[in-house]
Each structure stands twice: as C-alpha cells, then as structure tokens.
C-alpha cells in the first residue's frame, strides 16, 4: 500500500485536529472526513473524539469503537471477539430477503424455519427473520461471546422467536438440540485459507478480529454436505474463493443421491468476487425456488430430477 504523503497529513490536521490520525485506515481525505463525521455523531457517551481518532490510528475497527454496524434495516451491536458484519454479507442477505418476502412460499401458512450456523453477531438470522414475517430461527455458534451478543442484538432489534445454541458443529453432529427440519440454512463460516492469511488480510482485521471466525479450509463446507443437506430444503453459505464453490458443487454432483435432488448456484458480489454458494432440493417447493431464485445468482448445476421434469414439461 502506498505511503500517505506528508502534505496530505499536514492538510488533514489543519482541517480538524485529529483528522490526520484517520488517514492510515481511510486512505483518502474524503473517507477520513466521513469517518470523522460518523465518530462525532455516534460516539458512545464518555468517550472523546480525540481518543477515538487515536484508536483508529492504532487500527481498531470503527465498529468496535462505535459498538455498532448497520445491517440492512437493523442496527447490529458489535463487540471485540465477534466478527463484524461485512457489506458483502449485508448485500446477499438483503437480496435474499427481497426475493423471499415477495415469493409464493410465504402465501401458504406454514412458517419458514431459518437456521444460521457460524452466526457471530446473528446478523444474517436477524435480518432474515425481520424481513420474513412468518418465520422462526435457530442460531448456532461455538463462541460464548457470540451467543451473548446475539441475545443483545435480539433485544435491541426487537426480534423474538429465536433459539440459541452454543456448540461446535464441526465436532458434535448428532445433537438432538438441532432443528430436524430447516427451510433455509445460512452460514458465514470462516473461509480465509491459512496460507493466505498473512498476505491477503488487512492489518485491522488481523489485529482485532477473532481468527476463529476467519481462518478455515474446507471443513465447514464438508460439514455442510455431510450433515446438513439431509435436514434442510435449501442452503446459502458465504464463500471466499471459487474453490470453495467448486468443492460443494463437485461433492453434490459426484454423489448419486445428492445429484438427483440438489441444484447448486453461485452468486457474485458487486465487487465481482464469488460470494455465495447456494442450493435447493427438488421438492414441490423446489420448482418454485428455481423460479424465485433466478435473479439471486446463476444456477451452475441443475438437479437431475428437475432437469428431467423440465424436459418432460417441454
């Protein structure tokens, strides 16, 4: 990353005291001014703006200083030890809410059950539950801090009807607390490859966000295919690179049972990176899902049951 020129630092410090301290994180003067405005407006009581600027200079994430991050229509409380919701996640979750809240799936009366694994702040489950009126949810996370934070966020955003489970899903698979029937399974598992951590991750994330929520190879996606596909009607998992998508797609394609009933799709974020691997079962609901999820992403693999059905209907 290029060094910030001394003239820019001098210019910033002349505009407002402390503004130059925001430059290392913000990079541009415009962004620094915006952050300064947000800090001035939303700083928790008892903290000075000078303190906040020094925190930013030391790479502390803005969301940990302000203790919150907007997520769609919600305001999510953020605390050290729990991953901060990213705009990419917000983007695909809001797309999903938009599609589902207008779909025929909601017209029948049975409520949708949402299950969110690796939930962290609980942002995905809360946003979905907030946007889909007739729904209930379960969230699962290994971290105690995360579960506590989900409770706080449920209170703050006035979302109820949720079940919270603190357990490591990678090691305890046959747990009777897990819901037996899920309509929508979501997850934002740790997906940064260990060998890329030093190279690709920015300083602020490296220093302040929990590695437990960041570093992962393929085990979470393996767990998805092995243990969750039998319980759910659809899944939406965030990914960090194309290989993670290929892994899920190939596991489903190569399995004679799964390839018959599961279709797999891929969604890119607006920055052009592969972001979500999703799939749905070829049930009666499946053909509806095939239609309503059309604008969400691109279907890369169509379940043989559905493709035959399609051929017949033609």
């Amino acid at each position: 990353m290029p060094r910030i020129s001394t003239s820019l630092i001098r210019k910033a410090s002349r505009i407002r005291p402390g503004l130059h301290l925001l430059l290392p994180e913000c990079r541009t003067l415009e962004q620094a001014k915006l952050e300064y405005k947000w800090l001035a407006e939303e700083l928790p009581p008892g903290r000075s703006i000078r303190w906040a600027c020094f925190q930013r200079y030391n790479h502390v994430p803005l969301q940990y200083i302000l203790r919150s991050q907007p997520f769609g229509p919600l305001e999510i409380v953020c605390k050290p030890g729990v991953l901060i919701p990213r705009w990419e996640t917000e983007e695909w979750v809001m797309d999903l809410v938009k599609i589902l809240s207008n779909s025929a799936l909601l017209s029948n009366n049975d409520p949708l059950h949402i299950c969110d694994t690796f939930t962290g702040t609980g942002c995905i489950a809360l946003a979905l539950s907030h946007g889909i009126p007739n729904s209930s949810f379960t969230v699962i996370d290994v971290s105690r801090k995360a579960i506590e934070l989900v409770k706080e966020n449920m209170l703050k955003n006035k979302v109820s009807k949720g079940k919270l489970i603190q357990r490591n899903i990678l090691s305890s698979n046959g747990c009777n607390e897990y819901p037996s029937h899920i309509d929508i399974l979501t997850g934002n598992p740790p997906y940064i490859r260990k060998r890329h951590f030093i190279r690709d991750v920015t300083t602020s994330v490296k220093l302040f966000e929990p590695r437990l929520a960041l570093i992962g190879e393929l085990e979470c996606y393996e767990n998805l295919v092995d243990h969750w596909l039998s319980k759910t009607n659809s899944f939406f998992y965030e990914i960090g690179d194309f290989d993670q998508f290929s892994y899920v797609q190939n596991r489903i394609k190569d399995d004679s049972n799964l390839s018959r009933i599961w279709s797999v799709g891929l969604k890119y974020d607006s920055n052009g990176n592969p972001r979500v691997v999703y799939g749905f079962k070829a049930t009666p609901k499946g053909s509806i899902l095939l239609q309503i999820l059309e604008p969400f992403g691109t279907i890369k693999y169509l379940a043989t049951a559905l493709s035959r059905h399609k051929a017949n209907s033609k």
Partner: protein
Amino acid sequence: MWLSKLQFPSKSVVKGIFLNCKSPWLVRPTSTTTNSQSSTTIPTQYSELSPLLVKQAEKYEAELKELDKDLSCGIHFDVNKQKHHSNLSALTDAFIEYKEKLNELKGLQEIILSDPSLKEEAEQEYVELVPKYEATSSRLVNKLLPPHPFAEKPSLLELRPGVGGVEAMIFAQNLLDMYIGYANYKKWKYRIISKNENESGSGIIDAILSIEEAGSYDRLRFEAGVHRVQRIPSTETKGRTHTSTAAVIVLPQMGDESSKSIDAYERTFKPGEIRIDIMRASGKGGQHVNTTDSAVRLTHIPSGIVVSMQDERSQHKNKAKAFTILRARLAEKERLEKEEKERKARKSQVSSTNRSDKIRTYNFPQNRITDHRCGFTLLDLPGVLSGERLDEVIEAMTKHDNTERAKELLESN
C-alpha cells in the same frame, strides 16, 4: 387618474412593487362609455373573463349536474370520483358567484346611466364592488387551471454554487439557510440528506435538502434556477462588489423513503437499465477486509443520470437514498420532456419561465431582491434570507405563473 385607480384595485403587495400586474390577454376590458347628456365620465371599467374561459366553466357546470344526477340515483362513487366531484362543485360555486357579481355590476352600470337621482349611491356601491369582483374572477381563473401533476408531492432541493469561487459557495450556504428558515417558518419537516462543506469551512460544495411536507413541491418549484448575488464578499479585501451565482434544483419526491418502497421501485427498472457501482479497491473482500467505505453510485443507462451517495455508514441505506434521488430526477426529466412536447405541439410563442437562466437577484448594497420572471421587487433582504418573507416572493411568482398558464390554456382552446 380616477380610472386608473379603479383598474388596479389593491393589488400592490405591502412594500412590494408590482410591475406587470395584469395580463391583457386574460381579460376583455369593456369600453368606456360616456354619458352624452351630463358629459361626466362614469366609472364603468372592469374586466370581464374571456368567453373561452366562461365556456370552459359552463362545461364543468354541466358535468357537475350530470354527476349530481348520478349521485341522486344512488350510484356508488369511488374516491377519485368524489374528489372530482368536490373539485367541480368548488369551481361551480366560484363561477356562480362570479356571474352574480357580474350581473350586479351590469345592473349598477345601467342605474348610473339611466337614473340620475340614484347616481351618487350607485357609483359608490360600484366602486366598492369592483375589487370584490376582481378577487372572485381571479379565484375562478385559478380553479380553471389544471393543477401541476406533482403539486401534492413533497420536495427535494439541490443546491450548488455557480460562478464566483468561495463567494458562490458561501452564497449557496446562505440559500440553504434561507430554505431551512422558510421550512421552519412554515412548520414543515425537513432533513439535510447530504452536505459537502468547503474545505476551508465556509460555504458548501453541494447540499440536498429534503422537505417532507406534502405539497411543498408546488410551493417551491419556482425556486429552481440560477440565483444571483451582488455584494461585497467577506473574501474581498478591496471593497469591490462581486456578482456570483448559485443553482437551485427542485425535484418532486416520488414516494416515501422506507426501504420497502425503494425495493419495489428498484424492481420496476428493467434488468440492465441501472448499473450499481460500489467504489472499492480491488482485493478479495469479504472477511479479508473490514472497510468503512460504503459509497454507492447508480447509473441510469438510458438517460445517463448518475447519482452517488456516501453519507451513511450502511451501503444499503446509501443505495436507498441514491434511488430516491434518481427517481426524483427521472420524474422531473420526464415531466419536462412532456411539457416541452406539449408546448411544441401548440407552437405557442410563450417564453418558458421555469428554465430561464437567471431567475432572481439578491442585491446587498441596495437591500433589494428582484425576481426577474415576474418583475417582483422586495426591499428587505435580511427578511427574505432568513426565510420569513420568502413567502411573499413565492406568492408573487405563483400569481405570475397562474396568469402564464391561463394564457396557455386560452391558446390551446
């Protein structure tokens, strides 16, 4: 002298000077008749409405009768029809009043001419009646004019400095304060959607003000255009008067800003019609970085309109705001195009009022504010800039616009 006094009854605004008060198109002055026997001039001059407008009003009256018939038969009215009915009955009431006053005037005129014994009294009554008659007739003209398509909408005001550097930025800030003051004075709810301040801290680079009062667009739409200021700027060291400008754009808000309606609107665009750009550096994104840059840029490809928004911490909210502004700009553009088409079709020679370059001058040395479209001048600059007396300027402009539109209505008939 006596005559001219009658022709312009109580039209001058307090402290204001009306330059072109009456359009000769609208009215048909009756000829001055003289009594050959006594050779004294009697006041007979009043302005009758053009027969075309009267015909229009009679048409509406007939329509109201039809509707009343339907109503008495017990036919169910929906909301729109009810609205139409109430509009028509208000119009017809004004028309009936107009006809009554006109007949009274004509009657008085006859008495003055034929009966010398009652002449004095009749003349006095006549003089009193003329202003009342004028008020009724102008009310009727306003009712006959079709309302602006977006008259009921809340509004968005965009301010940008024009020529004049920092001084223009300061003037743009003055205008922003004026509109905020005006909203306060009117007790309207407002919100500053975005504001970019000049780096040195004086003046603005741009600002968008949202006024959430329904109908505020109808009031503020004449503010659109280039505003000119003449004063000795605070940045001037040698005491010279500078002329600078700032542009004001007024747009109707096409719906409320709740995220649901935004989503609904987003869907009404065809795929590929809108490009949504997020301004972010390349990289892997996702969990790898935690950026606070949430800027969004929308490009409406068919029209080339670009809107960017970065004020909110949430990209989602920035997107919603950007869509509100894009929607407003598109609506305004479509309306202007439609108006332009209608105007061309009519081949009327009427010069456009809402797009003339410089619409108003704020002259500080003379403490004067002049609206160039209607020629209205007010000598109280602080009062206007605080927003308290802006209403008078707008009122003058509204009247001017009504006459202009009445002119167009007549031509189209």
